C-alpha cells in the first residue's frame, strides 16, 4: 500500500504544509515551463522563432516576464466592485491547489490516502468557474460581463459530458480512488476499452480550461479580454497561472483515467507520468494553434446535442457489456 | 434599352438638358444631364425602376462664378457599363430634397456632402456630420476654408 505524507511527517498539519509546498513548487515551475512551451510550440507552428533572447532557447523568458508582472502596478479601477474584483484570482486558484493534492504521485507515493478522490476532483474543478464569474461580473464592464456569462454557460455545458465520460471509466475500474484506477491499468490502459469516453473527456476537458476552439469567455477578437480585461500586473498573471495549472490538472486526470498513470516499460513511474501529461498538453496546444473559435451558441449545441447523448450511449453500452461479462 | 429610359426620363422631367458623351471617353459616362434639384427624386425613381444604383453623389463649390453649389449624381447600371451624370445647382439657402428614401447609399453620401460643404438635404433621416468630429462648426471643402499653401513655412509641422 502506498505511503502518504502523514506517515512521513507524523502530525497531519506538518504533512498538509509539506504537501502544499510541494504542490505550489510543482505548479509554479510547471506554469513557467508551460508558458515557454506554448510560446515555442505556437512559434514553430507558425514558422516563427519564439522566445530566444533570455537563456538558452529563451528558457528564462517566462521568468523575466513573471518578474516584470510582479513589478507592475496593481491598478484597481474605481468603477469596480472591490470585493468581487479582488477575490476573483484567489477564487480561481484555491480549487486548483486542492485538486492537486488528490493525485497519486507514483506507485508508492500519495499525498493522502483517499478512496473517493474522483468525486472530490470533479467537485473542486467546478468551483474554479466561480473565480471566472466573479472576475467578469466584478469588473463591471460590458465586455467582462459578456465574458462571465459565456464562461458559466460553457462550463455547465461541458461539465456534464466530462462527468459521464469519467463515469464510464469508474464502471470499468469499479472504484472511485484514483490510485486504484491507475493500478488496474497495468497491462492495458483504459483508452483501449473506452476510446469514445477518452475522446469525449479530452474535448470536454479542453472546453473546461477555456482553451482552443472553446475559448469564447476571453475571446480576444470579440470581447477584447473577456473576463480578465480589467486586470493588470500580477493579478493578470494569476489568471494565466491558473489557466496553465488547470491544463496540467486536466491532462494529469486524463493520463490517470485513460493512459494508465505511471505504467510504462523501462523508465521510472514518475517520468512516464510526466511524459504522458506533457504529450497531452502538446495536443491541447496543437488544437489552439490550428482551429478557429466556435461561435457561442454552436458551442453549447455541440455539447448538449452531441457530446451528452454520445456519452450517455457510451455509458449504456459499457454497462451492458459489463453485465454480460 | 437606354433610349426608352431617356424617354421615360423626359416624360417625368420635361426641361431636362442632355448632352451625349459617348464620343468623349474621358468624361467617363454615356450622358450628362443638367436638371434642377427639385426633380432629383423623380429622376431617382426612374433609375430605381430601371435597376440602376446611385453610385456617387458629390458637390462642387461654384460660389465663385454663379454663387451656387452644384450637386453631381452618378447613376450606374449593374451589368452593362452605362453611367448617367446629373448636375443640379443648389440656390443658396434652399435645401435640396433627399434621395435617401429611394437609395440607401444616398444616406451616407448626403451626410458627407453636408459635412464637407454645409448643404443640408430636406427629409434626410439623420442629417449629421459623418467624417469630421462632432461639434465641428467648419465645412472643410469650401473654397474659402483657410488653408496654408504647402510651401509656406507654417504648414503645421512643429
Amino acid at each position, binding site marked *: 500500500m502506498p505511503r502518504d505524507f502523514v506517515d512521513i511527517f507524523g502530525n497531519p498539519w506538518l504533512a498538509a504544509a509539506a504537501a502544499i509546498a510541494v504542490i505550489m513548487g510543482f505548479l509554479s515551475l510547471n506554469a513557467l515551463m508551460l508558458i515557454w512551451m506554448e510560446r515555442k*510550440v505556437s512559434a514553430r*507552428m507558425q*514558422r*516563427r522563432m519564439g522566445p530566444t533572447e533570455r537563456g538558452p532557447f529563451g528558457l528564462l523568458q517566462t521568468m523575466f516576464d513573471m518578474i516584470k508582472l510582479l513589478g507592475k502596478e496593481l491598478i484597481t479601477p474605481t468603477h469596480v466592485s472591490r470585493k468581487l474584483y479582488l477575490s476573483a484570482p484567489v477564487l480561481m486558484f484555491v480549487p486548483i491547489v486542492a485538486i492537486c493534492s488528490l493525485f497519486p504521485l507514483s506507485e508508492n507515493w500519495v499525498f493522502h490516502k483517499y478512496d473517493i478522490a474522483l468525486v472530490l476532483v470533479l467537485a473542486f474543478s467546478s468551483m474554479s468557474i466561480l473565480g471566472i464569474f466573479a472576475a467578469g461580473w466584478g469588473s463591471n464592464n460590458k465586455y467582462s460581463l459578456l465574458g462571465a456569462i459565456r464562461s458559466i454557460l460553457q462550463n455547465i455545458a461541458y461539465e456534464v459530458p466530462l462527468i459521464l465520460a469519467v463515469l464510464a471509466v469508474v464502471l470499468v475500474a469499479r472504484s472511485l480512488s484514483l490510485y486504484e484506477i491507475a493500478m488496474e491499468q497495468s497491462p492495458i490502459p483504459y483508452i483501449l476499452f473506452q476510446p469514445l469516453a477518452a475522446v469525449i473527456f479530452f474535448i470536454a476537458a479542453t472546453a473546461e480550461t477555456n482553451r482552443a476552439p472553446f475559448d469564447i469567455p476571453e475571446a480576444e477578437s470579440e470581447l477584447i479580454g473577456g473576463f480578465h480585461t480589467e486586470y493588470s500586473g500580477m493579478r493578470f498573471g494569476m489568471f494565466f497561472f491558473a489557466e496553465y495549472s488547470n491544463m496540467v490538472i486536466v491532462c494529469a486526470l486524463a493520463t490517470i483515467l485513460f493512459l494508465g498513470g505511471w505504467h510504462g516499460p523501462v523508465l521510472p513511474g514518475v517520468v512516464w507520468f510526466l511524459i504522458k501529461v506533457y504529450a497531452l498538453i502538446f495536443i491541447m496546444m*496543437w488544437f489552439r494553434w*490550428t482551429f478557429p473559435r466556435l461561435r457561442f451558441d454552436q458551442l453549447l449545441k455541440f455539447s448538449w446535442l452531441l457530446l451528452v447523448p454520445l456519452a450517455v450511449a457510451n455509458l449504456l453500452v459499457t454497462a451492458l457489456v459489463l453485465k454480460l461479462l | 434599352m437606354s433610349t426608352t429610359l431617356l424617354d421615360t426620363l423626359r416624360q417625368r422631367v420635361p426641361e431636362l438638358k442632355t448632352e451625349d458623351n459617348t464620343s468623349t471617353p474621358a468624361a467617363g459616362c454615356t450622358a450628362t444631364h443638367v436638371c434642377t434639384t427639385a426633380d432629383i427624386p423623380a429622376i431617382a425613381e426612374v433609375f430605381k425602376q430601371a435597376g440602376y444604383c446611385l453610385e456617387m453623389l458629390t458637390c462642387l463649390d461654384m460660389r465663385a462664378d454663379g454663387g451656387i453649389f452644384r450637386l453631381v449624381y452618378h447613376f450606374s447600371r449593374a451589368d452593362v457599363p452605362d453611367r448617367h451624370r446629373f448636375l443640379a445647382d443648389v440656390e443658396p439657402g434652399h435645401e435640396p430634397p433627399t434621395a435617401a428614401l429611394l437609395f440607401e447609399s444616398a444616406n451616407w453620401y448626403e451626410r458627407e456632402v453636408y459635412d464637407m460643404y454645409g448643404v443640408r438635404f430636406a427629409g434626410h433621416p439623420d442629417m449629421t456630420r459623418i467624417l469630421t468630429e462632432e461639434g465641428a462648426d467648419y465645412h472643410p471643402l469650401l473654397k474659402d476654408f483657410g488653408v496654408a499653401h504647402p510651401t509656406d513655412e507654417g*504648414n503645421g509641422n512643429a
Partner: protein
Amino acid sequence: MQSLLDIPRGARSLLKGMGVTIRHFFRKPVTVEYPRKRAPVAKAHRNAIVLIEKDDIGSHNCIACLQCEKICPSACISITGSRPDGIAFKRPDKFDVDFALCSDCGLCLDVCPTDTLGYSEVYDAAGYSRADSKFDLLEAWRDKEGEALGTLRERERKKKEEREAKRKAAEEAKAKAAAKEKAEGKEDDKTGNGTAAS
C-alpha cells in the same frame, strides 16, 4: 448544429488541418531576429534621400535650382544657394530635409537636372523629437567643398578657353570663306555674266 452524418467528415477535416500545422512545426522558421540579424534590404528601396557624389567633381553637383523644393508635395526640402565667384552655377549653402514629412515619393529625384540626389542606406533613423528628423544633407560634403570649388573653377576656365578658341576658329573660318568668295566672284565676271550674281 449539423446532422450526425457530418461528424466523420468534420472530424477528418479537423485532423487534416492539424496535419498541416504539424508539418510546419518541423520546418525551418522564416523569420529573422531583427535587432541581432538584419534581413537584406532591396537595392532600389527608397530610403532617406542624400546628395550623391558626381565623380568628375569629387563632390555633389547641386546647383541650388530649387526644382526639388518646388515639386515636393509635403514641402520638406529647404535650400538656400549663392553663386561663388568664378563659377557659372550656384552652390547650396543650406540643404535641409525634414524626414518626418517626407513621403518617399521620388519626385525630387525625377526633377533634379543634375541627378545629384540619390537614396542612402538609412532606413531606420529614429529620434526623440521632431527636430531629430531634420537632416542637413550638406554635412557630409562640408570638407570636400573647397576642393570641389577648385575643380569647378578650373573646369570653368577650361571651358572659357575652349569658347575663345572656338570663337577665334569661327572668325578665321569666316574670314577665309569671305576671301574665297571674293576670288570666285572675280572668275564669274571673266566667264561672262550669263549666270546672275548669286
